[in-house]
């Protein structure tokens, strides 16, 4: 449906909106027309009518002018004042109060960042309440359900003039030298963190940037929340991968994880390995990979650097999820594999070289020149080249067929030129093997073709059998099976099956059909 975000993919709205019937291409145009409204309020405000007006707030005296005895009381009052929310949708009303709140917030930011001794215990609940009231909200539906962050302008948070200061204030609070996690943990608890994590879905990149820093500080200071944070991030990713394919803050979360992984102690816990294999690797299948691939690849490489024995499972995992149709993603994965190869240990390399180079060989032969080019660039990497050289007896036969073929066939002259260079390098590595492969190239092709024909023949016969069996099934299954196995066996003896297994089975099937 056009711009109505459905709440969950499984419950996709069934009614096709009329504009879709009218114009399959409206998506873009409708969206562009809507752009005039590029800010949106949070779900908490009714658009327009029937909302009780926010109470007016009037400026309190400046904190710096208050005596030290009054200061704390004034600080509390100001925090409470900042809990009053304003509708930024409405650009005409409450202007004065909005400005008062802005000035107050800005004063509070200064107050917690420059003063010592202001974070007394009673301030903690007031501060968390003020922050929660201002930032925690149900994010509004995206105006543009197929929001493409690479192409479209994000919808910005309308109340940013206040919200930015609230985030700013919260950060200064967390970074204040007097900050006591042991006191704060009563207020900054699991529920708080959960709500914070949900805000990572905000479409406004400025907000996500702030939350990233906030979460990073919280993760650093609250040891008791760490496992919980990791688990909830896992849940977000799993939902993203397997359920919604929609979450705006994947890149930011991965960035935080990158630094978390960096700090993992060795040997790695099972939980962390599971995170790598069950979440980071499947994340590569996501449609929006381009938006967070850099951060994702960083996390993966971090893991391998920490524990090289993970190399094999990681590479095999990536090969399992290798993109089938999306060339852009293929190029990204080739980039990631190169990053892995840059840090790979030679012993680990030996374990994955065969499946890996089978894939690389396919990439080199890709009709998409960017994929082929990216794969061929591996031969410019000194370290990779040394690994190939060391294992050329294994790798050369895998690569040779495709390289030889596309050196004659590829449509793109740049690729052909690159392939010639690669072939030359390989020839220099092991000219004897290279000559043998060249000599047997034709034979190998023919053998492959023949094998292919035999396969087809096998299936043709199997299909015939299937058809006959199905039609005979009602008549008498048992009898048919009986005849079938008897005949098979009789026939077995008459054939020399060593040479051609496929022919053998088809022959006996033939005899079976004949018997009927």
């Amino acid at each position, binding site marked *: 449906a*056009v711009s*109505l975000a459905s*709440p*969950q993919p*499984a*419950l996709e*709205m069934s009614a096709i*909106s*009329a*504009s879709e*019937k*009218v*114009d399959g*291409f*409206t998506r873009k*145009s*409708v969206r562009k027309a809507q752009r005039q409204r590029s800010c949106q309020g949070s*779900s*908490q405000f*009714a*658009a*327009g009518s*029937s909302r009780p007006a926010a109470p007016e707030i009037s400026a309190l005296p400046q904190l710096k002018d208050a005596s030290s005895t009054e200061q704390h009381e004034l600080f509390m009052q100001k925090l409470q004042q900042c809990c009053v929310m304003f509708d930024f949708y409405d650009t005409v009303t409450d202007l004065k109060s909005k400005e008062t709140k802005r000035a107050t917030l800005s004063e509070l930011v200064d107050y917690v960042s420059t003063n010592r001794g202001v974070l007394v215990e009673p301030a903690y609940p007031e501060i968390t309440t003020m922050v929660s009231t201002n930032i925690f909200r*149900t994010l509004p*539906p995206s105006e543009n359900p197929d929001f493409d962050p690479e192409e479209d302008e994000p919808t910005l948070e309308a109340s940013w003039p206040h919200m930015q200061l609230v985030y700013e204030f919260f950060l200064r609070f967390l970074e204040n030298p007097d900050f006591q996690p042991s006191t704060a943990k009563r207020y900054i608890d699991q*529920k708080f963190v*959960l709500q914070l994590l949900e805000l990572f879905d905000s479409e406004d990149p400025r907000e996500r940037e702030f939350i990233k820093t906030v979460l990073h500080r919280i993760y650093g200071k609250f040891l008791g929340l760490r496992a919980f944070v990791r688990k909830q991030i896992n*849940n977000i990713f*799993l*939902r993203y991968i*397997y*359920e919604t394919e929609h979450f705006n803050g994947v890149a930011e979360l991965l960035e935080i994880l990158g630094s978390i992984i960096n700090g993992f102690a060795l040997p790695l816990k099972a939980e962390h390995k599971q995170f790598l294999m*069950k979440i980071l690797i*499947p994340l590569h299948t996501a449609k929006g990979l381009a938006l967070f691939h850099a951060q994702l690849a960083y996390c993966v490489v971090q893991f391998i650097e920490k524990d090289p024995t993970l190399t094999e499972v990681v590479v095999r995992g990536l090969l*399992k999820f290798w993109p089938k149709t999306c060339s852009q993603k293929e190029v990204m994965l080739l980039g990631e594999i190169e990053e892995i190869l840059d840090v790979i240990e030679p012993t680990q390399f030996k374990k994955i070289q065969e499946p890996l180079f089978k894939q690389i060989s396919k990439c080199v032969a890709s009709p998409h020149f960017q994929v082929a080019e990216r794969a061929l660039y591996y031969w410019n990497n000194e370290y990779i080249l040394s690994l190939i050289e060391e294992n050329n007896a294994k790798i050369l036969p895998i690569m040779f067929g495709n390289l030889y073929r596309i050196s004659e066939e590829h449509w793109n002259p740049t690729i052909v030129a690159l392939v010639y260079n690669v072939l030359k390098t390989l020839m220099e590595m092991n000219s004897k093997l290279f000559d043998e492969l060249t000599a047997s190239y034709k034979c190998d092709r023919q053998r492959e073709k023949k094998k292919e024909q035999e396969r087809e023949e*096998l*299936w043709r016969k*199997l*299909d015939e*059998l*299937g058809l006959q069996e*199905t039609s005979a*099934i009602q008549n008498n299954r048992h009898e048919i*099976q009986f005849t*079938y*196995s*008897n005949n*098979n*066996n009789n026939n*077995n*003896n*008459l054939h*020399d*099956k*060593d040479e051609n*297994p496929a022919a*053998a*089975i088809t022959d*006996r*099937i033939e005899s079976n059909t004949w018997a009927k």
Partner: protein
Amino acid sequence: ASGAQGPALVEGVGLGMAGADSDDSLYPIAVLIDELRNEDVQLRLNSIKKLSTIALALGVERTRTELLPFLTDTIYDEDEVLLALAEQLGNFTMLVGGPEYVHCLLPPLESLATVEETVVRDKAVESLRKISHEHSPVDLEVHFEPLVKRLASGDWFTSRTSACGLFSVCYPRVSSTVKAEIRQHFRTLCSDDTPMVRRAAASKLGEFAKVLELEYVKSDIISLFTALASDEQDSVRLLAVEAGVSIATLLPQEDLETLVMPTLRQAAEDKSWRVRYMVADKFSDLQKAVGPEITKNDLVPAFQNLLKDCEAEVRAAAANKVKEFCENLPEDSRETIIMTHILPCVKELVSDTNQHVKSALASVIMGLSTILGKDNTVEHLLPLFLAQLKDECPEVRLNIISNLDCVNEVIGIRQLSQSLLPAIVELAEDAKWRVRLAIIEYMPLLAGQLGVEFFDEKLNSLCMAWLVDHVYAIREAATCNLMKLVEKFGAEWAQNTIVPKVLGMANDPNYLHRMTTLFCINALSEVCGQEITTKHMLPVVFKMSNDQVANVRFNVAKSLQKIGPVLDSNCLQTEVKPVLEKLASDQDMDVKYFAQEAISVLSLA
């Protein structure tokens, strides 16, 4: 025979027919398994898709003893292959020897139900549900139910998610002790630590409730429903809404108020718009489930709130339900409720800021006229229709026009025609061709409602203008539209009003317009009948066979083939045949081709 084949074969030779069953083994399964292991995914996929063929070739026993263990052991493959496998196994009962052996299929399906990829898992669950019905009650307890339990207590969330979908299929057919266990497992999953599992449980809650005894619905299901409906994650809460509707249908009226209504009321006011959206989306089902009294007392105010919701998504979902909701109101108070409670909200929606809300409303608003009757329609609804007909968004106008028939029945279309015309004209000339296409599709309907006079006077020129639209799809639709109009108004009308105009285009300097003449003739010849075709159309077609553009000429050949059946045989032989023969010797190969095709189809050779 050679001994190189290995012991099995040697033995086979020795024992002859008697040993047939055992010997024959190893070899072919190896070949088939090779296919299933092929390095190329596509080939592997093809083989898996033909798994039933392989099983047939092996026979039931070897399928059970060799193929299934192989499949169970080697489940590590591309998800696409696994998906095909999960699907195949659901249809494998006969291939393993019938219901008696169907439990052999459980091990591979169990593994498939634990994989990461949702699509595969769902398919495995679907297949498991399917084959569960083929289990005898004993097998269900001995084989199937333990599998469900294993899945329900699996380590990783995937297996627990899959388990949620299996409880309801085994529950009705097991003993009461096992039933109690199943209920306990379901309870546990509803409060699972992982939101994915809670979502799965919430989405199956309604289905599970349906197979439970009423006492357990009241004691177990209600508390689970209440808990899920106040989950910390809105994605769980919204799924509980649907379950709530199913549960409400199961309970006697007197329990509804205490057991489900508090929770549903809370959902309608949830802080997350996704949950409120879900309530709006399920509103008609909900209304049916709770009955007239609760509808009057609770649902009417809730519906009003949804229509006034702060999120456009919610308002649009509610607007979509306006007609259905009004239709299903209890008859005694229907009109009062609509007039005093619903209509004021509807009026506001007509000038909503969001076009999707307006267009959702426009797609159903006309339906209110049958419910409210003539006087109310004229007084209250007509102004709204007229306002929507002037809406800036074409989608809104189109939705009104596409539902004109509802109003016609009640007040006649004349009341609207003054406003209708400018709206139609504007849509007919919209810059987006798909909008133009949509309005063309409503033309036959409009023509039928407005009558031939109005049509000739106001709309005919539009219909002709579309024939020369610069977008082919519009010209094509316009051609088809003419045919439908003739079906409505008759051949005589066609001869007087449209045929002359269509034939006039044969002399147009633009060859695309000349071709449109031919396309119109193709469409019109049959509805216009032999006389008009022979007398008026055919001469024009013949004349165009000399066109200088080859595309026109081969379309002449295609047209002749098309209208041939309408003509009499004399005409075919004496007039059509010579023209086609001439075209068959044209210098353009396409013209030749289509001329020859026409000659052979019309049997003129």
